[in-house]
């Protein structure tokens, strides 16, 4: 068979089969007006093509008859397409349509009356090509005068169709994409019909081919732009089958053609060669079938195909994803892939500010300034369990009347068409906003379903990510101060060194002075509060410039990338002074002594690696501590040497002690010298308290502590004006308040005595009362340190039995009676009773200091 013959027969056969199948499919489905009119187009084209085939087959009543039927189809098709385009673009002009209908009708009548084609016949002849003989069939026709009118009408209608198609672009609800398909198809139809006028071409079914291509493009336009939901129209299987049948027909046709061509040769091998050819073609067609399946998916199920793809990749990526940014990114990508919106934005709730802000958006360049407050009706709408919100709903529902003009304007400017909530349980944690789609079509139910699903999945993923992030953060965070912890510090230190290379990194090692004592004095609750306060001070001062960690206990570290020693020292001093100032300005005066010692070391100049950096900052910090506390020291090699020597000197435990003992006695003498009337008071209190402590079977070190505390308990009186200390009359309230400050002053002095910090709890508590009415802290019962309770009794007893500027001494018995009277109110009952008994039994002798034997 010659190629021209294949074309002659093949085109109408394939076109007719396709039309019939499509008509069958459409007739089985729900139809809207587009489909109904398109079915009419198909009917006209079936008439056209079927008549052409019947004519070629010379079926009765004859070629001329079928030719005229074919012309009816040829004339009717453009007019019905005109109606279709009118409805499709929603630009129906009834008057013009009537006129075209009239012209078309006239042309059809002329045709049926025989004025268009006067005669038509099929001429069969034998043709020899390359020495081989072929049967050829050609169509020959005679035209009448009516053909000019018929063609003119047909072209007029087609031109009207094309003009209407392009005008339809201006209509707001028809996109260029939709029109483009129709326009291309119509142009092909127009050209096909035009070339048909040339007899040399007209004898071939070029017009039918053009018509077939046009109908295919209309089908694509209908499905691609969602003019109808394919899933309602036809099952996927049917769609595959349709294309499979077309391919099979083509396959059969090819095999038959080969068989016919071989028939002219050796008859013996014809069946074998045909069978072989059929297998070869079948083999070649196999991938074609597969491709057809994909084509059906992409062409007719494009949206669904893209949605499936998007869902698959989204589910895959977020199932194990715990990074918020990555989840957001994947969501935006998936939405873009499935929906093809011009822009997609994801807003997340800022809990602190109570607003929703853009967290991620599809544009890499433009990040819109959009924030939606908590009380915006959009948020309230989703809180009341709605799963989506369209622009139309926003514009028409009374619920949204409370939106502000500027809020509406922002959403308008961004072209937001659909909003989907991202919820964690019932809380709206984010919003997904989409602008209009690339092809300008409206969002349909499938789109919204998909977006709702993505929104819900994202909510769950974000929830998981947040939980993970929280647990990660908790593992790296100190639960008390909310600062990063020791573990994080080491990781961060390593990371910073690696990141900075040869860049500077300063480390501040901060240790709170006498913090153990602080805890002992005020309890761990107060100690924790103090640590939180220090953490807040550090965070406030460092901000984003560095990383603050709680290294452990009362030690903090601050990593300062790109900070040289000077800058680090300045910041350390700022921190130190802030701590001092903060605690000094506290209402509770007894807490004033909390200060910090800070060591500064800078990598790489003062330390070659992380280990040395840490070690040397530590040395600097200890140097600060050992040189009076509450200071900042920068690490230098000299410090290291002096530190070593210091450590060497301190090597033997208590080697320094005699020096301190001397200091204690010197200080005691100083206060005794200042307060003449209480001359020897500290000494006597030390003696009484030590006897009492011995009776309590306390261990040796505790008794020693009581002794030392007793010697130092009034040391703060050095700071009290002498005229008050020696006043003979009763003290005024103001004067008494000043006297009460001696406790605080004692501590201020003692804390500067290295190794004497342990006596502070006893000293600070010696004016506390068993019933909680004492000062400075109002502690009660066992909360008062035991040593302080011993001092309180001894102090009171000696005060009563000594002469004072404002009164004479009481007798021992009177003093004991007074102690007994205050048992359970001022004094610890157990200790007071023991003390009274010790005095009465003569173990404690009041007359003559030396008579009391100190048991140490």
């Amino acid at each position, binding site marked *: 068979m010659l190629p021209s013959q294949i074309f002659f027969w093949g085109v109408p056969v394939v076109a007719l089969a396709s039309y019939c199948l499509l008509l069958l499919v459409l007739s089985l489905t729900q139809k809207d007006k587009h489909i109904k009119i398109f079915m009419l187009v198909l009917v006209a084209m079936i008439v056209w093509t079927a008549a052409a085939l019947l004519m070629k087959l010379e079926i009765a009543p004859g070629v001329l008859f079928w030719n005229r039927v074919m012309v009816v189809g040829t004339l009717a098709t453009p007019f019905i397409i005109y109606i279709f385009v009118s409805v499709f673009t929603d630009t129906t002009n009834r008057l013009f349509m009537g006129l075209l209908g009239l012209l078309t009708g006239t042309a059809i009548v002329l045709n049926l009356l025989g004025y268009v084609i006067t005669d038509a016949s099929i001429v069969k002849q034998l043709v020899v090509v390359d020495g081989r003989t072929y049967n050829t069939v050609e169509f020959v026709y005679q035209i009448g005068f009516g053909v000019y009118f018929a063609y003119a009408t047909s072209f007029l209608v087609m031109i009207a169709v094309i003009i209407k198609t392009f005008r339809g672009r201006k209509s707001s609800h028809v996109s260029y994409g939709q029109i483009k398909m129709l326009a291309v198809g119509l142009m092909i139809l127009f050209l096909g019909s035009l070339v048909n006028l040339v007899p040399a071409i007209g004898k071939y079914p070029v017009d039918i081919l053009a018509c077939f291509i046009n109908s295919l493009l209309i089908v694509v336009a209908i499905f691609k732009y969602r003019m109808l939901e394919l899933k309602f129209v036809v099952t996927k299987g049917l769609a595959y089958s349709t294309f499979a049948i077309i391919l099979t027909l083509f396959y059969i046709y090819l095999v038959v053609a080969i068989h016919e061509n071989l028939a002219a040769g050796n008859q013996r091998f014809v069946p074998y060669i045909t069978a072989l050819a059929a297998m070869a073609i079948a083999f070649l067609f196999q991938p074609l079938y597969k491709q057809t399946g994909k084509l059906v998916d992409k062409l007719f199920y494009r949206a669904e195909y893209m949605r499936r793809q998007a869902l698959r990749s989204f589910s895959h990526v977020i199932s194990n994803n715990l990074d918020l940014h990555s989840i957001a990114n994947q969501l935006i990508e998936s939405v873009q892939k499935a929906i093809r919106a011009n822009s997609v934005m994801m807003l997340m709730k800022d809990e602190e500010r109570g607003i929703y802000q853009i967290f991620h958006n599809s544009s890499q360049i433009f990040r819109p300034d959009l924030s939606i407050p908590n*009380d915006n*009706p959009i948020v309230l709408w989703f809180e009341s369990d709605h799963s989506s919100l369209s622009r*139309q709903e926003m514009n028409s529902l*009374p*619920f949204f009347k*409370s939106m*502000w*003009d*500027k809020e509406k304007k922002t959403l308008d400017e961004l072209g937001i068409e659909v909003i989907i909530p991202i919820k964690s349980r019932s809380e709206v944690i984010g919003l997904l906003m989409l602008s209009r789609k690339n092809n300008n079509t409206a969002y349909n139910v499938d789109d919204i379903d998909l977006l709702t699903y993505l929104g819900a999945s994202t909510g769950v993923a974000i929830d998981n990510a947040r939980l993970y992030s929280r647990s990660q953060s908790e593992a790296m965070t100190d639960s008390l101060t909310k600062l990063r912890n020791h573990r994080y510090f080491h990781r961060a230190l390593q990371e910073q060194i690696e990141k900075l290379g040869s860049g500077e990194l300063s480390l501040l090692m901060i240790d709170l002075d006498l913090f153990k004592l602080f805890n002992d004095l005020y309890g761990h609750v107060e100690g924790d509060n103090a640590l939180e306060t220090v953490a807040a001070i550090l965070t406030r001062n460092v901000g984003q410039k560095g990383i603050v960690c709680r290294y452990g206990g009362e030690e903090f570290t601050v990593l300062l990338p790109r900070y040289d020693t000077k800058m680090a020292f300045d910041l350390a001093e700022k921190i130190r002074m802030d701590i001092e100032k903060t605690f000094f300005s506290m209402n509770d005066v007894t807490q004033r002594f909390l200060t910090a010692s800070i060591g500064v070391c800078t990598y790489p100049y003062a330390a070659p690696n992380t280990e040395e950096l840490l070690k040397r900052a530590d040395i600097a910090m200890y140097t600060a501590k050992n040189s009076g506390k509450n200071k900042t020291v920068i690490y230098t090699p000299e410090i290291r040497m002096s530190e070593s020597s210091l450590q060497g000197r301190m090597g033997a435990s208590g080697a320094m002690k005699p020096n301190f003992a001397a200091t204690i006695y010197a200080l005691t003498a100083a206060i005794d010298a200042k307060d003449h009337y209480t001359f020897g008071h500290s000494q006597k209190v030390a003696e009484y308290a030590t006897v009492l402590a011995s009776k309590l079977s306390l261990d040796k070190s505790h008794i020693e502590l009581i002794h030392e505390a007793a010697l130092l308990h009034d040391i703060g009186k050095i700071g009290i004006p002498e005229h008050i200390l020696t006043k003979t009359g009763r003290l005024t309230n103001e004067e008494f308040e000043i006297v009460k400050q001696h406790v605080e002053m004692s501590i201020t002095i003692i804390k500067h005595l290295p190794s004497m910090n342990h006596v502070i709890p006893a000293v600070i508590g010696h004016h506390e009362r068993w019933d909680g009415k004492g000062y400075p802290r109002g502690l009660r019962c066992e909360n008062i340190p035991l040593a302080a309770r011993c001092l309180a009794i001894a102090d009171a007893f000696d005060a009563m039995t000594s002469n004072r500027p404002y009164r004479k001494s009481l007798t021992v018995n009177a003093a004991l009676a007074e102690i007994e009277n205050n048992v359970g109110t001022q004094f610890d009952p157990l200790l007071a009773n023991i003390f009274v008994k010790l005095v009465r039994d003569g173990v404690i002798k009041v007359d003559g200091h030396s008579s009391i034997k100190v048991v140490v």
Partner: protein
Amino acid sequence: MVLRCLVVVWHMDMMCGGTAVNLEERFRKKQYDHIWQEYCGFLDLTMPLFMDIQNRLMLEQLELYSNCELGAHIMKGKKPSSVAEFRKVVPLTTYEDYAGLLLPKNDSALPAKPLVWIETTWEGALNPVKVAPYTEGMVKNYANAIMAALILITSSARGEFSLRGGENFLYGMAPLPYLTGLIPRVLPLSVNFMPSIDEAESLSFRERSKTGLQMGIQKGVDIFFGLSSIVAKMGESFTSGSGLSGGIRFTRNSPRMNSRLLKAWLNSKQEGTPIRPKDIWNLKGLAITGTDSASLKSKIEEYWGIRPAELFGGTESGCIAVETWAKNGLVFFPDMDFYEFIPKEEFDKNLDDPNYKPNTYLMNELVAGNQYELVISSFKGGAFARYRTGDIFRCTSIHNKEANVLLPHFEYIDRYPTIIDIAGFTRITRDTISQAIRISNLDIHDWFAIKDVTEENRSFLHLYVEAGLEGMRAGINPDIIREHLSIYFRHIDSDYKDLKALLGIEPLKVTMIPRGSIEQFAATFGRDLRRMNPSHYDLVEILKIAGDSARREVS
């Protein structure tokens, strides 16, 4: 100035033109449910949702208002951050508070740039007109409210309405710069205004009504919107035959209208009854407004064959309330203004003691059966804050269960007692009367005035006067006083003369009472008699003092 007006009108046309295309397309696609939802969906709101809208829009307004000269002036420099604080710190206002900044039409002092300035007569007579700026947001809201009203006046049940676009709209309201003149400019639906917008604006009120009626006879009328007094008067004129006299040219009429006219004429002859508007027109909707609406409703229905629906609006407030399909009470739009209400007891106290600061209540705090004066605060960058409108409403019910509308329903009662509104045309104040008496040179010793109604429910001004000694000597009588005062009222108030010309009513009646009656009232009750609309109790008492003749007059 001309250029600016043109620009404004063009802008409004553009603004609403876009919406019109959209709305008309929806009408064409028969999306009636969506259209109802968009414009009349507010009738589905619950009271809490209504208040949420009120509060949130008020916060938007506060943000705008706090940052402008007018806001600083009215709020005395305070910047309230909540609605409650706003109501606490900002005093109630009247137009006098705004006159200094609004009358010069100074845009820069306002919370937002106005699109158009609306004017009306100022009953206080301190200035001939008062003006109110309308921003783009306000104009949009106004257009939506009018559209909602049109849908509702053509509705028979929830969601069922017959408005389709292209209707013949007989429009009997004042043109720009009055507020009602905005309607043809902003309506988001094409209707056939009769007469056309451009023609109407060049005609006087009387010519406009006449031309509209002629066109109505030629083409038919589907919708009619007018002052209740005018609508009633037109019905009356038709019935008496004067409405059709000399106006019908059958050759110009559409065949449909000619057949209707013929049918109406035949019926009229057969039954011996006059032709009424309802015999020739089959209205889809009839909207009325004005102080006499409630009293004239039944009569209007009788003439026009359709129950009229009432609208309520004002220059300062915009169109704020409309009746539903049930036509049994006004329902307020949630997004036009922020509404507060002064109970009658409170404004009565304020009438007696101008220094008294009346308390206000919100929409969700009202009691059915009580009367309230409306106080509004503009939304969308408008000028007014806690503005006393002087309009008195009765809350007829907290909701209408039958129609399933869960918002309060209202009946418009009248203007504030110190203002006498006659047929919606003119508003007479104490100043207007004092001025007329002063320039008439009549020797009138004292007076008080009430708004009275005729047997036909037509309102008029009833002035009770005590003649002075000179007047008594000169034989002054009620006719002389009425003649004189009518002349001066016409001079002072341009709308006054239309009352008789258009409605054929005598708006003023004078009754003389014995000299000293008003003083005796004060001596007896220890307080002055209110000169404008004294309370019913006080009126009875003063007329007792004045004697039987006066009492007979009032009865």
